[in-house]
């Protein structure tokens, strides 16, 4: 039985098969409408995350399965002091697969150790959020054509951004990707990531202004720069505009560039950008459902041979 704890749990070959399945789901939704008939997904969310929970539930419902679960710790037995390992043993009796979000790092790993059903880490504190990374990879692969040979700019809070760190590590397994890190000095990419980039001989540069590099990018991955991350209000006001994507900055970019964002956005992408053909962040949310559908099928052992049958 397999679980998903980190995006690196799957080899690149396994990811290719997962993404092929997700792309087939995108094209032939009807074909998959009943593959999970009679199966149940438990969404065990110890902290609220509407977007992630709903995308998991939509994925299972699209596959013909059912969903049950809780959306915050106070409505679960955790409030009575039940351990994660006890909870998952019980959930294993009720459902066929579980997606778990927990504020404590490693909680889904504890669940996986004691579970009789596959467990998907749906986010554990600041540690991992693998289905977001799989969503990002699928979006890039689908819209760019491949996961190699491009320049990606990562913009905003690169210091605390779990999503960004996870995506960089996942992309380091592919060929010929250049990274451009765009952030204020205070929110630079951490040194341990820089060390990993150097070890893998990845090409990268660090800059502080989006305008200076936007013309060179094939992909721009935006994240939020939060006011509370700055030491003082003055710096925040001085710097925040450098990290807001608007029409004027987008005019400097390639016509083929794609703009991604893990969402929710606040003001870092101006709404005037939404109708530009390069804005791909809502499409990205849609890919999040496809990749979770493919993941549920794969972990339930329902993906084997599906694509081969297609070719006949």
């Amino acid at each position: 039985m397999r679980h998903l704890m980190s995006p690196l749990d799957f080899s690149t070959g396994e990811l290719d098969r997962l993404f092929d399945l997700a792309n087939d789901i995108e094209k032939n939704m009807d074909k998959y409408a009943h593959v999970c008939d009679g199966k149940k997904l438990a969404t065990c969310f110890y902290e609220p995350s509407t977007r992630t929970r709903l995308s998991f539930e939509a994925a299972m419902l699209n596959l013909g399965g059912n969903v049950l679960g809780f959306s915050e710790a106070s409505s679960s037995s955790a409030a009575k002091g039940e351990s994660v390992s006890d909870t998952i043993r019980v959930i294993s009796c009720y459902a066929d697969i579980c997606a778990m979000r927990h504020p404590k790092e490693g909680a889904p790993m504890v669940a996986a150790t004691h579970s009789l059903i596959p467990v998907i880490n749906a986010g554990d504190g600041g540690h991992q959020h693998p289905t977001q990374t799989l969503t990002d990879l699928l979006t890039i692969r689908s819209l760019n054509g491949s996961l190699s040979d491009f320049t990606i700019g990562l913009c905003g809070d690169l210091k605390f951004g779990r999503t960004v760190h996870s995506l960089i590590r996942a992309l380091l397994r592919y060929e010929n990707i250049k990274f451009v890190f765009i952030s204020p000095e205070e929110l630079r990419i951490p040194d341990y990531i820089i060390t990993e980039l150097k070890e893998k001989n990845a090409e990268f540069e660090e800059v502080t202004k989006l305008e200076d590099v936007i013309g060179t990018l094939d992909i721009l991955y935006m994240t939020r720069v939060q006011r509370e991350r700055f030491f003082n209000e003055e710096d925040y006001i001085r710097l925040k505009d450098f990290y807001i994507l608007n029409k004027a900055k987008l005019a400097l970019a390639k016509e083929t560039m794609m703009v991604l964002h893990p969402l929710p956005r606040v003001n870092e992408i101006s709404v005037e950008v939404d109708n530009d053909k390069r804005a791909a962040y809502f499409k990205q949310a849609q890919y999040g459902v496809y990749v979770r559908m493919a993941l549920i099928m794969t972990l339930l052992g329902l993906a084997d041979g599906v694509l081969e049958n297609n070719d006949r």
Partner: protein
Amino acid sequence: MLNVGKIEEGFVLDHIKAGQSLDIYHKLNLDKLDCTVAIIKNAKSNKMGKKDLLKVECDVEMLDLDVLGFIDHSITVNVIKGGEIIEKKSLKLPKQITNVIKCKNPRCITSIEQELPHIFVLTDEKSETYRCKYCEEKAVKRWDI
């Protein structure tokens, strides 16, 4: 080596870094055993300048080599039987250690679920890096036990 009386069966841990013998004594749970233990501190050493030693008279099977390997794999383990050294064991970095050190990450699941074992996994042999199995927090320096 200083002579603190011969032991019949047990082990002598040699080349312990000076000042660390008492920590090792506790980490190997020797304080809980009802046997003869000699702790020698700051003995002269040609190789190390100063060193500590531990002489323990007990069943040799009771020694947890993984714990010792994690603490300091340069320690020499002399196994004694019939009053003689019959074997010198070399120590390796263990692949995994359980309940030797605690995860200090306040966001780790082990911080709220007391009954969970604290498991650290060797993730990089070269840099001797251990990480928490659950949250992947790096183990703080190995002497901070």
